[in-house]
């Protein structure tokens, strides 16, 4: 069970309050009409899907109902931090791992 920090509520809450909404920082093409089929398809469907660090969009669906981003490891499931949409979070992952394993 994830304990997720909602940057809007500024509280840790349990996983069932939240809903995962996939990869974060997907910028919609500024002029969709000018996209080729390939560019539009890439935007809509193709994902990084990494085994490791992943920036992803979550929504606090049973809470404040606002979207925010999480930096999480998809292999270890460790959450390295949450931050609001439009912001960016840098985390020293190695240091974070040491803290959690000690």
């Amino acid at each position, binding site marked *: 069970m994830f304990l997720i920090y909602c940057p809007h509520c500024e509280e840790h809450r349990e996983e069932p309050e939240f809903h995962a909404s996939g990869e974060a920082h997907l910028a919609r093409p500024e002029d969709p009409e000018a996209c080729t*089929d390939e560019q539009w*398809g890439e935007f809509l*469907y193709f*994902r*990084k*899907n*990494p085994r490791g660090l992943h920036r992803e969009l979550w929504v606090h669906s049973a809470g404040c109902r606002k979207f925010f981003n999480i930096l999480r490891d*998809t292999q270890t499931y460790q959450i390295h931090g949450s931050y609001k949409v439009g912001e960016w979070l840098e985390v020293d992952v190695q240091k974070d791992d040491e803290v959690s394993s000690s």
Partner: protein
Amino acid sequence: MKRYSGFQLVKHALQHQENWQRMWRNPKPKSHYDIIVVGGGGHGLATAYYLAKLHNKTNIAVIEKGWLGGGNTGRNTTIVRSNYLWDEAAHLYEHAMKLWEGLSQDLNYNVMFSQRGVMNLGHNLQDMRDIQRRVNANRLNGIDGEVLDAQQCQEIVPIMNCGGSTRYPVLGASWQPRAGVARHDAVAWGYARAADALGVDIIQQCEVDDILIEDGAATGVSTRQHGVITADRIGCVTAGNSGVTAAMAGFKLPLESHPLQAFVSEPIKPILDTVVMSNAVHGYMSQSDKGDLVIGAGIDGYVGYGQRGSYPTIEHTAQAIMELFPVVSRVHMNRQWGGIVDTAPDACPIISATPVENLFFNCAWGTGGFKATPGSGHVFADMLAKGKANKMAKPFSMFRFHDGALIDEHGAAGVAH
């Protein structure tokens, strides 16, 4: 390969079962193969088997990072059915179903395929309309199917709560009598044994860490344990790790990998002789020959490679199963596990050429790969042998996500996602 038979069984019984032949060799990899299949799960082994059997290719290797069938092949709930809505998907899964029906004889290995029927429940009016539509579509495609009402469901599964007291009452179901279950490990082992007998090298404990590309064409793989192995063509059948293998080759796939979990109970006396699935309440259940209830859940919503599922999903599934089958409320669960399923946005597989020449992918089977094992291997073998998609594989190109020709099974097929 010595064939299994009743005579062999008697003969070995007299020798205290001590002299059975090893099922497959454990060869050192050669430096070059005509075709390398990356991934030694059911689909990869089936691909190698049909390449050797139907396409006369013998210089083939299957490279597996763990052990055979240790991924999703050994982690699923073993349901086999073919009642898909859209023609493209229905043809593919029905192709697999027809191969299932003769598979034990074909492989000389008992895969314990049991056509005990699969019931997909409907819980509201729209579910029932969708079921009618799907069953009609199935019949037009020559796939067996019936629409059942609540009373008929009750007759087939007496322990199911079809009364009006439930939050999501059972109004009816679609019923595919030819569907059923098979023994998942036996499928991997049977294909491995049969492929090995035809000369395929099965290399276990060998992890591919890079795909070698020259001038836009794949030339081989680099492995952690055995260095570089070159090949004329490479087929990746890497399920949940397909995104990772695609990244090695430098492109993205329209996939996300999610944990999908299942659990089994302690063995109990026979209470369920069919398979019951419910898309709406997210649970499905069958009973194995050993007596344990095999229960499947929905996927976790987030991307994950951890091969374990989340607790909220367990709880959600247990609630659904208890409501449908109040009689099992005191049964203990023995084991719980997760597999990593690679799901495409339209919930249909990708059997495809890629932006890299001589590199092919067979992935995105999502939550429903096991049932397709023979068909998937059959069409992918054809693709690897000829270098192009046959009629059945063509609609499943990864480039359908560019041109928009998706096969929208996601909501339509009564698939428990």
